[in-house]
């Protein structure tokens, strides 16, 4: 926004002002300063966490160097570690989760805003938010006691029998592994994306939507070409919220992962993610090198998140330009 005078001259009398005359001078600069500090605090925290991580990961970085990133060795008794299987598991499980959750969430948001009676929408919307309220350890236990057996007894054997020629549907169909982990993550991020997307869609001005309807567009067309575009930044923000949650989820995946420290193409195999490895190993690890390795895994996760963000920023700028926004 261009510079705007904080106070117009010749303010007409009769306009109620809540601020006493003297404070007026400080209010706006104070406001600017406060919000700037608040924003800076976010940056400060990230930098601080990064520093703490780097300090604790020094030992591991010095010991293994760069090849830590593409080595899938994991021999705790021999003090040999490699991050490849964890990185792979994180990326694939997050991709599965986003692939399942994104269309579901957007379509549920559409339902809540456009298609349902307002009272029903409020109830259903609150019900979906409740999904987010369930503690992650409960998700883990539900996954362990309910979802994994269901996947292992019905879904995975069926997939293995009928679609087993597809490489990703291979592995021992026991219900514990990449697919179940991706599903649990999708369930966990669904309410976040839905809630934000719902509010974004609700904030699209009625006028704009009616302009579309007035030209004979169907509901879906108005949603796709008007609402989603208008609220694109908000929708993308919702997706990033979900993505962050999926990448950082510690407990739930730890229960259904199986902690196999190898890279496997099949989704029925046990797997591990960076966070599940942290959750499973951190509290029991007493070896200084092992602890350092775990911290380095956390650092790598940070790096992955930053990389995804940067790629997304570049891509968004390009998409934004073609959509005509001057963002």
């Amino acid at each position, binding site marked *: 926004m261009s510079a705007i005078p904080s106070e117009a001259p010749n303010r007409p009398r009769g306009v109620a002002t809540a601020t006493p005359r003297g404070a007026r001078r400080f209010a706006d600069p104070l406001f600017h300063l406060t919000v700037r500090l608040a924003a800076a605090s976010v940056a400060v*925290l990230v930098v601080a966490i990064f520093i703490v991580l780097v300090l604790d990961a020094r030992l591991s970085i010095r010991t293994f160097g760069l090849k830590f990133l593409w080595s899938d060795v994991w021999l705790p008794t021999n003090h040999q570690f490699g991050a490849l299987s964890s990185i792979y598991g994180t990326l694939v499980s997050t991709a599965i989760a986003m692939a399942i959750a994104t269309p579901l969430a957007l379509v549920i948001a559409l339902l809540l805003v456009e298609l349902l009676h307002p009272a029903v929408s409020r109830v259903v919307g609150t019900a979906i938010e409740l999904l987010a309220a369930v503690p992650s350890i409960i998700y883990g236990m539900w996954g362990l006691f309910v979802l994994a057996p269901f996947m292992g007894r019905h879904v995975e054997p069926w997939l293995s029998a009928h679609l087993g020629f597809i490489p990703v549907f291979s592995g021992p169909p026991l219900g514990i592994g990449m697919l179940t982990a991706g599903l649990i993550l999708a369930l966990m991020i669904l309410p976040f994306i839905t809630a934000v997307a719902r509010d974004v869609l609700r904030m699209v001005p009625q006028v704009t939507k009616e302009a579309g309807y007035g030209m004979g567009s169907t509901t879906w067309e108005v949603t796709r070409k008007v609402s989603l575009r208008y609220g694109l930044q908000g929708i993308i923000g919702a997706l990033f919220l979900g993505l962050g949650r999926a990448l950082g989820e510690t407990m739930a995946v730890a229960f259904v992962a199986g902690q196999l420290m190898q890279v496997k193409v099949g989704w029925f195999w046990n797997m591990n993610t960076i966070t599940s490895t942290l959750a499973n190993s951190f509290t029991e690890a007493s070896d200084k090198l092992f602890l350092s390795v775990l911290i380095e895994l956390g650092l790598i996760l940070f790096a992955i998140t930053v990389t995804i963000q940067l790629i997304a920023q570049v891509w968004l700028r390009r998409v934004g330009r073609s959509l005509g926004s001057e963002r």
Partner: protein
Amino acid sequence: MSGFRDATRSGAPLEAPATAWPGGQAGAPPSGSAPISPQRQLRQRSPRTRRLADRAVRVFAWAAAWLGIAVLALILYAVVSRGLHAWSTDFFTRATPGDPMQTGGGMANAILGTVLITAFAAVLGIPLGLLAGIYLAEIGRGSRLATAVRIMANVLSGAPSIIVGIFAYALLVKPLGHYSGYAGGFALAVIMLPVMARTAEDMLVMVPNEMRESALALGAPRWKVTFGVVLRAARSGLVTGAVLALVRVSGETAPLLFTAFNSPFWTRGLGGPTANLTVTIYNFALSPYRNWQDLAWGAALLIVVAVLGVSVVARLLFARETER
């Protein structure tokens, strides 16, 4: 019917209303839109196709919603069926039982501890997140610092909670030599902050620019425009952001494990190890003893119900359905 055809072709309405562009940036029609290729111009979708597509999406929407609700019902059923019978007067008034074999006992100290820790975290994290969101949406919009902060917020929101716990431990527990509920609250606030900030930014950005301009034109100072006009317009979304931030931390165990530690004692304040629900659930649910497991599920149910309550109350107090 040419207007009709144009609308289906490129999605850009014939006129360019000032508010039709993403984010409500006022002003001129877009510069540098991609030219529409001849193939795209020629492709016309018949009304029947479009109606079918619309119906297909509606069906998918209903199916997806029902799927989501079905799974929610399954999870809630699991929590309710295992947790409800643990609720009793004892559950809400007695402290956690040290002896797994004795029946009875409750979660009272853990409930109070969680309430205090979460309230402390909310007081730290939500206002700070809101202010950061205001910066990103209002003051610093488009600046490089804002882009950097936005990326950082996204990174922070993806930080594993166990890492945040380690960070809070390194900052507030190790130097001071003891555990505290304040450290736990701080760890939770660090998790809440980016959720609130990003959601706030996204909601504030959606407020149409006309509102800001009319307020400014009346001579209101910037802060008044933000607090009096923009925040109000985005109120419903901001409440969602606050509720989501709260919900994000209500089920977290790892950050509290090394900070608030947990305690079998009655909670007297946040200055030392503080009993809390999530770590207690973690301990009890994975134990082999039935009594402890029941209490754990009861506590999980309580968390779900409490968050529901907070969400409802927050909406009642602060949000209105947008009446457009």
